[in-house]
Protein backbone atom coordinates (compact mmCIF):
# COMPACT_ATOMS: atom_id res chain seq x y z
CA UNK A 1 0.00 0.00 0.00
CA UNK A 2 2.64 2.50 1.11
CA UNK A 3 5.05 1.20 -1.56
CA UNK A 4 2.42 1.63 -4.26
CA UNK A 5 1.56 5.13 -3.08
CA UNK A 6 5.24 6.11 -2.90
CA UNK A 7 5.71 4.85 -6.47
CA UNK A 8 2.77 6.95 -7.72
CA UNK A 9 4.15 10.05 -5.95
CA UNK A 10 7.65 9.38 -7.26
CA UNK A 11 6.33 9.21 -10.84
CA UNK A 12 4.32 12.39 -10.31
CA UNK A 13 7.36 14.16 -8.87
CA UNK A 14 9.53 13.11 -11.81
CA UNK A 15 6.68 14.17 -14.12
CA UNK A 16 6.52 17.63 -12.52
CA UNK A 17 10.28 18.05 -12.88
CA UNK A 18 10.17 17.13 -16.59
CA UNK A 19 6.98 19.12 -17.28
CA UNK A 20 8.30 22.34 -15.72
CA UNK A 21 11.93 21.77 -16.68
CA UNK A 22 11.15 21.40 -20.38
CA UNK A 23 7.99 23.54 -20.48
CA UNK A 24 5.97 20.58 -21.78
CA UNK A 25 2.33 21.16 -22.83
CA UNK A 26 1.38 18.22 -20.55
CA UNK A 27 0.87 18.67 -16.80
CA UNK A 28 3.21 16.85 -14.40
CA UNK A 29 0.77 14.05 -13.41
CA UNK A 30 0.22 13.17 -17.10
CA UNK A 31 3.98 12.95 -17.67
CA UNK A 32 4.10 10.84 -14.50
CA UNK A 33 1.44 8.55 -16.02
CA UNK A 34 3.64 8.03 -19.11
CA UNK A 35 6.70 7.36 -16.92
CA UNK A 36 4.86 4.72 -14.86
CA UNK A 37 3.47 3.16 -18.05
CA UNK A 38 6.96 2.97 -19.58
CA UNK A 39 8.24 1.66 -16.25
CA UNK A 40 5.70 -1.19 -16.24
CA UNK A 41 6.78 -2.24 -19.72
CA UNK A 42 10.44 -2.12 -18.71
CA UNK A 43 9.68 -4.01 -15.48
CA UNK A 44 8.01 -6.98 -17.21
CA UNK A 45 11.42 -7.95 -18.56
CA UNK A 46 12.79 -8.39 -15.03
CA UNK A 47 9.89 -9.27 -12.72
CA UNK A 48 6.80 -11.34 -13.30
CA UNK A 49 4.42 -8.48 -14.07
CA UNK A 50 2.00 -8.90 -16.99
CA UNK A 51 -1.14 -7.07 -18.14
CA UNK A 52 -3.13 -10.09 -16.89
CA UNK A 53 -1.61 -10.15 -13.39
CA UNK A 54 -1.16 -6.43 -12.70
CA UNK A 55 -4.53 -6.05 -10.94
CA UNK A 56 -3.48 -8.61 -8.30
CA UNK A 57 -0.31 -6.73 -7.36
CA UNK A 58 -0.02 -4.13 -4.60
CA UNK A 59 0.14 -1.42 -7.27
CA UNK A 60 -2.88 -2.86 -9.08
CA UNK A 61 -5.01 -2.88 -5.93
CA UNK A 62 -3.96 0.60 -4.81
CA UNK A 63 -4.57 2.18 -8.23
CA UNK A 64 -7.85 0.29 -8.66
CA UNK A 65 -9.10 1.70 -5.37
CA UNK A 66 -7.94 5.22 -6.19
CA UNK A 67 -9.56 5.21 -9.65
CA UNK A 68 -12.86 3.79 -8.36
CA UNK A 69 -13.10 6.95 -6.23
CA UNK A 70 -11.71 9.39 -8.79
CA UNK A 71 -15.00 11.36 -8.71
CA UNK A 72 -14.53 12.25 -5.03
CA UNK A 73 -11.22 13.93 -5.80
CA UNK A 74 -12.94 16.58 -7.97
CA UNK A 75 -15.28 17.69 -5.18
CA UNK A 76 -12.99 20.29 -3.49
CA UNK A 77 -12.27 22.01 -6.83
CA UNK A 78 -15.99 21.90 -7.58
CA UNK A 79 -16.80 23.62 -4.29
CA UNK A 80 -14.28 26.28 -5.34
CA UNK A 81 -16.49 26.97 -8.35
CA UNK A 82 -19.39 27.95 -6.07
CA UNK A 83 -17.02 30.44 -4.46
CA UNK A 84 -16.31 31.97 -7.88
CA UNK A 85 -19.82 31.94 -9.35
CA UNK A 86 -19.95 35.73 -9.14
CA UNK A 87 -17.36 35.83 -11.95
CA UNK A 88 -19.90 34.44 -14.40
CA UNK A 89 -22.02 37.65 -14.21
CA UNK A 90 -24.38 38.62 -17.02
CA UNK A 91 -22.90 36.22 -19.57
CA UNK A 92 -23.75 33.22 -17.37
CA UNK A 93 -26.77 31.90 -19.33
CA UNK A 94 -25.05 32.33 -22.71
CA UNK A 95 -21.87 30.63 -21.47
CA UNK A 96 -23.91 27.76 -20.02
CA UNK A 97 -25.79 27.34 -23.31
CA UNK A 98 -22.50 27.44 -25.24
CA UNK A 99 -20.83 24.80 -23.11
CA UNK A 100 -23.92 22.58 -22.94
CA UNK A 101 -24.35 22.48 -26.74
CA UNK A 102 -20.61 22.30 -27.36
CA UNK A 103 -20.09 19.43 -24.87
CA UNK A 104 -22.95 17.43 -26.43
CA UNK A 105 -21.54 18.07 -29.94
CA UNK A 106 -17.97 17.20 -28.89
CA UNK A 107 -19.15 13.94 -27.25
CA UNK A 108 -21.20 12.94 -30.29
CA UNK A 109 -18.60 13.89 -32.92
CA UNK A 110 -15.75 12.18 -31.01
CA UNK A 111 -17.64 8.91 -30.51
CA UNK A 112 -19.10 8.84 -34.03
CA UNK A 113 -15.73 9.55 -35.71
CA UNK A 114 -14.11 6.89 -33.50
CA UNK A 115 -16.63 4.17 -34.43
CA UNK A 116 -16.82 5.34 -38.07
CA UNK A 117 -13.04 5.09 -38.59
CA UNK A 118 -12.98 1.75 -36.77
CA UNK A 119 -15.69 0.36 -39.06
CA UNK A 120 -13.88 1.72 -42.14
CA UNK A 121 -10.61 0.20 -40.89
CA UNK A 122 -12.06 -3.28 -40.31
CA UNK A 123 -14.02 -3.08 -43.58
CA UNK A 124 -10.81 -2.28 -45.45
CA UNK A 125 -9.03 -5.24 -43.86
CA UNK A 126 -11.68 -7.81 -44.78
CA UNK A 127 -12.06 -6.72 -48.41
Amino acid at each position, binding site marked *: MIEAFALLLLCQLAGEVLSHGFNLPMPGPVVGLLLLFAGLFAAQKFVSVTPQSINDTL*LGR*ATGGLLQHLSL*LFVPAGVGVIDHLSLVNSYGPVLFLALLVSTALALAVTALVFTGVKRWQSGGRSS
Partner: protein
Amino acid sequence: MTPAFELWVYLSSTPLLWLTVTLIVWIVADRIALASGRHPAVNPVLIAIIVLGAVLILTGTSFATYFQGAQFVHFLLGPAIVAIAVPLYRNFDKVKENLLPMAAALIAGSVTAAVSALGIAALFGVPDPVLASLAPKSVTAGVAMGIAERFGGEAALTAVLVVTTGLVGAIIVTPLMNALGLRDYAARGFAAGLAAHGIGTARAFVVDEVAGTFAGIAMALNAVVTALILPLILYWFLA
Protein backbone atom coordinates in the same frame (compact mmCIF):
# COMPACT_ATOMS: atom_id res chain seq x y z
CA MET B 1 -18.66 33.58 24.01
CA THR B 2 -20.68 30.52 24.99
CA PRO B 3 -18.69 27.22 25.28
CA ALA B 4 -20.56 25.73 22.30
CA PHE B 5 -19.69 28.74 20.14
CA GLU B 6 -16.09 28.64 21.31
CA LEU B 7 -15.89 24.98 20.31
CA TRP B 8 -17.35 25.83 16.88
CA VAL B 9 -14.87 28.64 16.36
CA TYR B 10 -12.05 26.24 17.21
CA LEU B 11 -13.28 23.29 15.11
CA SER B 12 -14.36 25.33 12.09
CA SER B 13 -10.81 26.58 11.66
CA THR B 14 -9.14 23.14 11.77
CA PRO B 15 -8.58 20.98 8.66
CA LEU B 16 -10.14 18.04 10.55
CA LEU B 17 -13.68 19.40 10.45
CA TRP B 18 -13.86 20.18 6.72
CA LEU B 19 -12.02 17.04 5.63
CA THR B 20 -14.49 14.94 7.66
CA VAL B 21 -17.48 16.89 6.34
CA THR B 22 -16.23 16.45 2.74
CA LEU B 23 -15.89 12.68 3.13
CA ILE B 24 -19.26 12.25 4.88
CA VAL B 25 -21.10 14.38 2.31
CA TRP B 26 -19.39 12.36 -0.44
CA ILE B 27 -20.41 9.02 1.14
CA VAL B 28 -24.03 10.18 1.36
CA ALA B 29 -23.98 11.57 -2.22
CA ASP B 30 -22.44 8.35 -3.53
CA ARG B 31 -25.05 6.23 -1.68
CA ILE B 32 -27.81 8.33 -3.26
CA ALA B 33 -26.24 7.72 -6.70
CA LEU B 34 -25.96 4.00 -5.93
CA ALA B 35 -29.60 3.85 -4.77
CA SER B 36 -30.62 5.37 -8.13
CA GLY B 37 -28.82 2.50 -9.87
CA ARG B 38 -26.02 4.93 -10.93
CA HIS B 39 -28.53 6.89 -12.97
CA PRO B 40 -26.54 9.44 -15.04
CA ALA B 41 -28.67 12.38 -13.87
CA VAL B 42 -27.91 11.56 -10.22
CA ASN B 43 -24.28 12.64 -10.30
CA PRO B 44 -22.58 12.29 -6.88
CA VAL B 45 -19.99 15.01 -7.67
CA LEU B 46 -22.73 17.54 -8.40
CA ILE B 47 -24.76 16.54 -5.31
CA ALA B 48 -21.67 16.79 -3.06
CA ILE B 49 -20.67 20.19 -4.50
CA ILE B 50 -24.17 21.64 -3.98
CA VAL B 51 -24.49 20.29 -0.42
CA LEU B 52 -20.99 21.41 0.60
CA GLY B 53 -21.50 24.80 -1.06
CA ALA B 54 -24.74 25.25 0.88
CA VAL B 55 -23.07 24.23 4.16
CA LEU B 56 -20.25 26.75 3.61
CA ILE B 57 -22.70 29.55 2.83
CA LEU B 58 -24.98 28.72 5.79
CA THR B 59 -22.06 28.56 8.25
CA GLY B 60 -20.35 31.61 6.76
CA THR B 61 -17.19 29.59 6.09
CA SER B 62 -14.74 30.90 3.50
CA PHE B 63 -13.46 28.64 0.73
CA ALA B 64 -9.91 29.17 2.01
CA THR B 65 -10.86 27.73 5.42
CA TYR B 66 -12.75 24.86 3.78
CA PHE B 67 -9.83 24.08 1.49
CA GLN B 68 -7.41 23.72 4.41
CA GLY B 69 -9.24 20.47 5.12
CA ALA B 70 -10.36 19.54 1.58
CA GLN B 71 -6.84 19.97 0.16
CA PHE B 72 -5.95 16.48 1.37
CA VAL B 73 -8.59 15.05 -0.97
CA HIS B 74 -7.66 17.47 -3.77
CA PHE B 75 -4.01 16.47 -3.46
CA LEU B 76 -4.82 12.86 -4.40
CA LEU B 77 -5.81 13.99 -7.92
CA GLY B 78 -2.17 13.98 -9.03
CA PRO B 79 -1.34 10.40 -7.95
CA ALA B 80 -4.76 9.28 -9.29
CA ILE B 81 -3.91 10.59 -12.76
CA VAL B 82 -0.55 8.76 -12.58
CA ALA B 83 -2.51 5.63 -11.51
CA ILE B 84 -4.27 5.54 -14.92
CA ALA B 85 -0.98 4.03 -16.20
CA VAL B 86 -2.06 0.70 -14.67
CA PRO B 87 -5.38 0.21 -16.57
CA LEU B 88 -3.58 1.60 -19.63
CA TYR B 89 -0.92 -1.10 -19.25
CA ARG B 90 -3.62 -3.74 -18.66
CA ASN B 91 -5.65 -2.78 -21.73
CA PHE B 92 -2.78 -1.76 -24.01
CA ASP B 93 -3.61 -4.40 -26.66
CA LYS B 94 -7.05 -2.86 -27.05
CA VAL B 95 -5.50 0.62 -27.23
CA LYS B 96 -3.07 -0.45 -29.99
CA GLU B 97 -5.97 -1.78 -32.08
CA ASN B 98 -7.64 1.62 -31.93
CA LEU B 99 -4.79 4.02 -32.76
CA LEU B 100 -6.32 5.31 -36.01
CA PRO B 101 -9.87 5.76 -34.63
CA MET B 102 -8.34 7.56 -31.63
CA ALA B 103 -6.25 9.93 -33.76
CA ALA B 104 -9.19 10.85 -36.01
CA ALA B 105 -11.64 11.24 -33.10
CA LEU B 106 -9.09 13.32 -31.17
CA ILE B 107 -8.70 15.94 -33.92
CA ALA B 108 -12.41 16.01 -34.81
CA GLY B 109 -13.53 16.20 -31.17
CA SER B 110 -10.95 18.78 -30.13
CA VAL B 111 -11.87 21.15 -32.98
CA THR B 112 -15.62 20.61 -32.41
CA ALA B 113 -15.34 21.35 -28.68
CA ALA B 114 -13.56 24.67 -29.22
CA VAL B 115 -15.26 25.92 -32.41
CA SER B 116 -18.84 25.14 -31.30
CA ALA B 117 -18.43 26.82 -27.91
CA LEU B 118 -16.74 29.89 -29.41
CA GLY B 119 -19.28 30.07 -32.26
CA ILE B 120 -22.31 30.11 -29.95
CA ALA B 121 -20.74 32.58 -27.49
CA ALA B 122 -19.54 34.90 -30.29
CA LEU B 123 -23.04 34.84 -31.82
CA PHE B 124 -24.39 36.30 -28.55
CA GLY B 125 -21.73 39.03 -28.49
CA VAL B 126 -19.57 37.66 -25.68
CA PRO B 127 -16.41 39.84 -25.42
CA ASP B 128 -12.92 38.57 -26.29
CA PRO B 129 -11.49 37.98 -22.78
CA VAL B 130 -14.53 35.84 -21.92
CA LEU B 131 -14.20 33.94 -25.24
CA ALA B 132 -10.55 33.21 -24.43
CA SER B 133 -11.65 31.94 -20.99
CA LEU B 134 -14.30 29.68 -22.57
CA ALA B 135 -12.25 28.19 -25.44
CA PRO B 136 -10.26 25.54 -23.49
CA LYS B 137 -13.30 24.42 -21.40
CA SER B 138 -12.93 20.73 -22.36
CA VAL B 139 -9.29 20.58 -21.23
CA THR B 140 -8.18 19.53 -17.75
CA ALA B 141 -8.24 22.59 -15.43
CA GLY B 142 -4.52 23.23 -14.91
CA VAL B 143 -3.73 23.25 -18.64
CA ALA B 144 -6.94 25.12 -19.54
CA MET B 145 -6.13 27.97 -17.15
CA GLY B 146 -2.67 28.33 -18.70
CA ILE B 147 -4.09 28.42 -22.24
CA ALA B 148 -6.80 30.95 -21.31
CA GLU B 149 -4.31 33.32 -19.69
CA ARG B 150 -2.05 33.23 -22.74
CA PHE B 151 -4.90 34.68 -24.84
CA GLY B 152 -6.09 37.31 -22.36
CA GLY B 153 -8.66 35.16 -20.58
CA GLU B 154 -9.28 34.97 -16.86
CA ALA B 155 -7.96 31.79 -15.22
CA ALA B 156 -10.56 31.71 -12.41
CA LEU B 157 -13.45 32.02 -14.91
CA THR B 158 -11.88 29.23 -16.98
CA ALA B 159 -11.77 27.02 -13.88
CA VAL B 160 -15.51 27.59 -13.33
CA LEU B 161 -16.29 26.78 -16.98
CA VAL B 162 -14.02 23.71 -17.01
CA VAL B 163 -15.64 22.18 -13.91
CA THR B 164 -19.15 22.97 -15.23
CA THR B 165 -18.26 21.36 -18.58
CA GLY B 166 -16.98 18.26 -16.77
CA LEU B 167 -20.20 17.92 -14.78
CA VAL B 168 -22.41 18.52 -17.85
CA GLY B 169 -20.39 15.97 -19.85
CA ALA B 170 -20.46 13.34 -17.08
CA ILE B 171 -24.25 13.71 -16.79
CA ILE B 172 -25.16 13.68 -20.51
CA VAL B 173 -22.60 11.18 -21.87
CA THR B 174 -24.52 7.97 -21.02
CA PRO B 175 -27.97 9.01 -22.34
CA LEU B 176 -26.39 10.67 -25.41
CA MET B 177 -24.33 7.59 -26.33
CA ASN B 178 -27.38 5.35 -25.81
CA ALA B 179 -29.47 7.65 -28.03
CA LEU B 180 -26.80 7.44 -30.75
CA GLY B 181 -26.80 3.64 -30.39
CA LEU B 182 -23.06 3.53 -29.61
CA ARG B 183 -22.14 0.47 -27.53
CA ASP B 184 -18.34 0.44 -27.95
CA TYR B 185 -16.97 1.31 -24.51
CA ALA B 186 -13.67 2.42 -26.03
CA ALA B 187 -15.47 5.04 -28.16
CA ARG B 188 -17.79 6.12 -25.35
CA GLY B 189 -14.95 6.50 -22.87
CA PHE B 190 -12.74 8.33 -25.36
CA ALA B 191 -15.55 10.84 -25.97
CA ALA B 192 -16.11 11.34 -22.22
CA GLY B 193 -12.43 12.05 -21.55
CA LEU B 194 -12.05 14.34 -24.54
CA ALA B 195 -15.16 16.48 -23.96
CA ALA B 196 -15.31 16.35 -20.15
CA HIS B 197 -11.67 15.77 -19.02
CA GLY B 198 -11.16 14.31 -15.52
CA ILE B 199 -14.78 14.45 -14.35
CA GLY B 200 -15.85 12.62 -17.53
CA THR B 201 -12.99 10.15 -16.98
CA ALA B 202 -14.15 9.54 -13.40
CA ARG B 203 -17.66 8.80 -14.66
CA ALA B 204 -16.18 6.44 -17.30
CA PHE B 205 -14.22 4.49 -14.64
CA VAL B 206 -17.46 4.00 -12.66
CA VAL B 207 -19.14 2.51 -15.77
CA ASP B 208 -16.34 0.33 -17.20
CA GLU B 209 -12.55 -0.07 -16.89
CA VAL B 210 -11.98 -0.02 -20.65
CA ALA B 211 -14.10 3.13 -20.95
CA GLY B 212 -12.08 4.71 -18.12
CA THR B 213 -8.77 3.83 -19.79
CA PHE B 214 -9.77 5.38 -23.11
CA ALA B 215 -11.15 8.40 -21.27
CA GLY B 216 -7.81 8.89 -19.53
CA ILE B 217 -5.94 8.72 -22.83
CA ALA B 218 -8.34 11.19 -24.45
CA MET B 219 -8.00 13.61 -21.54
CA ALA B 220 -4.19 13.55 -21.75
CA LEU B 221 -4.06 13.86 -25.56
CA ASN B 222 -6.71 16.57 -25.74
CA ALA B 223 -4.72 18.75 -23.36
CA VAL B 224 -1.79 18.61 -25.81
CA VAL B 225 -3.84 18.96 -29.02
CA THR B 226 -5.95 21.85 -27.71
CA ALA B 227 -2.83 23.71 -26.60
CA LEU B 228 -1.50 23.33 -30.17
CA ILE B 229 -4.61 24.09 -32.27
CA LEU B 230 -6.40 26.65 -30.11
CA PRO B 231 -4.11 29.53 -31.18
CA LEU B 232 -5.22 28.95 -34.79
CA ILE B 233 -8.93 28.73 -33.87
CA LEU B 234 -8.84 31.77 -31.57
CA TYR B 235 -7.18 33.75 -34.36
CA TRP B 236 -10.49 33.50 -36.25
CA PHE B 237 -12.71 34.41 -33.31
CA LEU B 238 -10.80 37.14 -31.49
CA ALA B 239 -11.00 40.61 -33.00
